[in-house]
């Protein structure tokens, strides 16, 4: 579904990604793990069109989307639940959801999608008129996911969705992701919580200093000695 080929990304003179290649199959959960600053977020932002790659191709369902602006990429069906949630704090929950549905392809089905999202996260419908900045961390994460779903994506990239959440809520969020995947959604998951993400992933890549150093099924990596030592502290 998504093929990243030999992708390099620079910020000014600094290189963030160095020839990264990976493949995401339809219906899969692909985990990307790596230390702070390894380039995970850069990868996601580049796929999403928020940063121009220096070289490489990003092929999504047959079209090369490298260098397209983010609104075009979103409209093609790549959704994103970004690092730090990135909700609109002074807008209401309802307005936040609306903003997710500004994409041309999603606009006509705004009402249905909204009902679907609110059914999925009843907590949000209770707070529909509240400014999003006043929500708790977990609720904000739900809002970010809900907002993403409003855009009818075919692929969702999650960037550290559990960051800063209490363990019980982390559980909820990860369960939501599993549920979405069970419903047919293709997911890319970046998580600090390496153990968990490898456990639910069908395929995983380890990113180090902007390079893919290991890849394989989630279970394989979980068993890999290097991974265990470097990321699980065992």
């Amino acid at each position: 579904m998504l093929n990243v080929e030999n992708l390099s990304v620079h910020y000014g003179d600094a290189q963030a990604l160095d020839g990264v290649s990976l493949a995401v199959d339809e219906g899969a959960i692909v985990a990307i793990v790596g230390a702070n600053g390894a380039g995970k977020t850069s990868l996601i932002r580049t796929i999403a069109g928020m940063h121009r790659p220096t070289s490489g191709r990003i092929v999504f369902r047959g079209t090369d989307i490298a260098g397209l602006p983010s609104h075009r990429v979103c409209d093609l069906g790549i959704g994103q639940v970004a690092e730090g949630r990135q909700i609109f704090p002074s807008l209401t929950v309802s307005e936040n959801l609306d903003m997710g549905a500004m994409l041309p392809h999603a606009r006509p089905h705004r009402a249905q999608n909204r009902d679907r999202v609110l059914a999925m996260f009843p907590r949000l419908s209770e707070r529909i008129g509240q400014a999003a900045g006043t929500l708790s961390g977990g609720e904000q994460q739900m809002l970010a996911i809900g907002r993403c779903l409003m855009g009818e994506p075919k692929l969702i990239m999650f960037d550290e969705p559990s960051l800063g959440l209490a363990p019980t809520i982390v559980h909820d969020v990860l369960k939501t992701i599993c549920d979405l995947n069970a419903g047919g959604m293709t997911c890319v998951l970046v998580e600090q919580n390496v153990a968990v993400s490898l456990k639910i992933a069908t395929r995983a890549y380890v990113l180090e200093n902007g390079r893919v150093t290991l890849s394989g099924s989630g279970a394989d990596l979980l068993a890999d000695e290097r991974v265990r030592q470097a990321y699980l502290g065992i």
Partner: protein
Amino acid sequence: MTALLSINGISKRFRGLAAVSRVSFDVSQGEIFAVIGPNGAGKTTLFNMIAGAIPPDEGTITFAGTRTDGLRSDQIARLGVGRTFQLVRPFPALTVEDNVIIGALMQTKTVRDAETIARDTLARLDLFDKRTQIASSLTLPDRKRLEVARALATGPKLLLLDEVMAGLRPTETDRIVATLRDLNRDGLTILLIEHVMRAVTALASRILVLHHGAAIAEGNPEQVLRDPAVVESYLGAESL
């Protein structure tokens, strides 16, 4: 051993969220002390309070016999507390050497001496060859080392390191670990935040574990890493 740094019941809240609550501990002269805990546990906030970047809501901080809570961060730095930032903050448009010279100018009045100190420090951190590069063009591991170099160049008595190993490869980690050990042997006291257990176990003589802002364990590495509460909340993340 005397306590170089002594934290007494400090707390910090952000709009209702208790980022750090009633944390107390002492760091003795010459030891390496580690703070660990899950993301968002309040480790960086704790550092920020020690370094004076944010004032604590309550509690006291004493460094080398001086009350430092309420002082500005530059005053605390001049008392001998060097720090790094978790999200690295080198001076982006300056060269590596200039970055470190700025740190070194805290110890000395002349640029010439500062240059000497800067070069020594850079050599110690394997950055000497890159000294004429612009800081923003460095790779992340180099920028992290640069952070350490700048903090070291200030000639601190206490060095606060916030996840300086994160993102480094095991070999690089080992190098930094060795450097830090060296420095420690020369008398530097180190307080570090780290997720990389390999480094923590290699370095720390004592560990404090934070969880949801509160200290849940403190002691030597063997004890702490076996503490069931710690395993559950932090290490044993495999429990889903």
